[in-house]
């Protein structure tokens, strides 16, 4: 029997999101938003994070559909402002933002590329059972707290290099 863990399956809703982008009649809108980073992990774009769900243009202007990582995430306001500012700088000033809760955000949407960028930035990315220290790659780590600097992260310490680090929690 094939080991399901070895075959990275893309969740259906994530496939739908990528298809929306690939088939968008306004690829330039997506490109503009590629300049907007997560304020907490500024190497990951809103699109890579999965927060940017859709963007399209109609007679009422630009419609931006976002989903929060965590319901109470205080960074959502900043993300919305940054996205509006990026669109405004490109001449799109009439922007309606819709917060969509379903499908609920999950770390399963993160690409291997995003996970790599996160680790390089110093935040361990969720990857099933094994948690790796982003500094020295050791897997000898212990949890300090279920909540780190923000709700989406947990605080760990590496027993090999003694460095504390944030883990982007798998949800």
């Amino acid at each position, binding site marked *: 029997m094939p080991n399901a863990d070895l075959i990275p399956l893309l969740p259906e809703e994530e496939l739908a999101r990528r298809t929306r982008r690939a088939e968008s009649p306004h690829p330039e809108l997506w490109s503009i938003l590629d300049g907007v980073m997560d304020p907490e992990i500024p190497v990951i774009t809103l699109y890579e994070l999965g927060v940017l769900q859709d963007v399209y243009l109609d007679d009422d202007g630009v419609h931006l559909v976002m989903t*929060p990582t*965590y*319901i*109470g*995430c*205080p960074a959502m306001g900043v993300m919305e402002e940054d996205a509006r500012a990026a669109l405004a700088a490109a001449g799109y000033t009439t922007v309606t933002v819709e917060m*969509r*809760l*379903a*499908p*609920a*955000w*999950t770390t399963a949407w993160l690409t291997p590329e995003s996970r790599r960028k996160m680790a390089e930035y110093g935040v361990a990315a969720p990857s099933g059972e094994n948690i790796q220290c982003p500094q020295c790659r050791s897997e000898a780590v212990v949890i*300090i*707290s*279920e*909540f*780190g*600097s*923000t*709700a989406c992260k947990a*605080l760990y310490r590496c027993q090999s290099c003694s460095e504390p680090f944030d883990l982007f*929690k798998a*949800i």
Partner: protein
Amino acid sequence: MSDNAHIAKYVLRLADDALVLGHRLSEWTSRAPFLEEDLALTNVALDFVGRARMYYQYAAELTGGGATEDTFAYTRDAREFSNLLLCELPRGDFAFSVVRQFLYDAFALPFLRELKGSSDQRLAGIAAKAEKESTYHLRRGKEWVLRLGDGTTESHQRMRQALDELWGYTHELFEVDALEEALIAEGIAVDPRTIRDEWQQTVTSVLIQATLPVPESSWSVQGGRTGYHTESLGYLLAELQFMQRAYPGLRW
């Protein structure tokens, strides 16, 4: 009452639970036993306040007539709040807050799992999101109950006392009135009676592991859903609502 008004009333109950408990949790900010715990409690508080906002926004849309999340949170009096009494009790010592949170999260997790299946798509969406967060909350809560229950003589004693003080407020979690009966029949509301066994089992197994006796006291208090609150809610609202009451419409 129209259908929307019924649903709005139900949604407000869920919103009030989340706001009031979130506020109690937020009172620990800068006062928790150590820094990591301070961050954790603040983050959990944010999860609850975020949840409250989602529910209030939905209730406002159902209500119309200028209602907003803020008018619900800042301009209603204690009698108009419909949160469970368990959520409003003062934060007490750390053991009290740990036990309250554990008893509530052990209820919230199965409740949200059921609400995910609600025929009301908006509620189902909020529940799907909140369920993931509650999984973390409950896991954290269990660890604290074990650590303090099976800890020092003093921590054990404080946990027992908190349990005794809180137990009588847990029955209200499973009360259902005519409004909820009607919404349960429509597949909108969760029937909390169906998750009582699961709650009991979660709570009992953790308490036993934590060497804490399951309270046998038979007293029970209720009234939160119909606006009969303990005096502590008034004090909580005084702090929460002061700015909007003193300077109506004030913006930061």
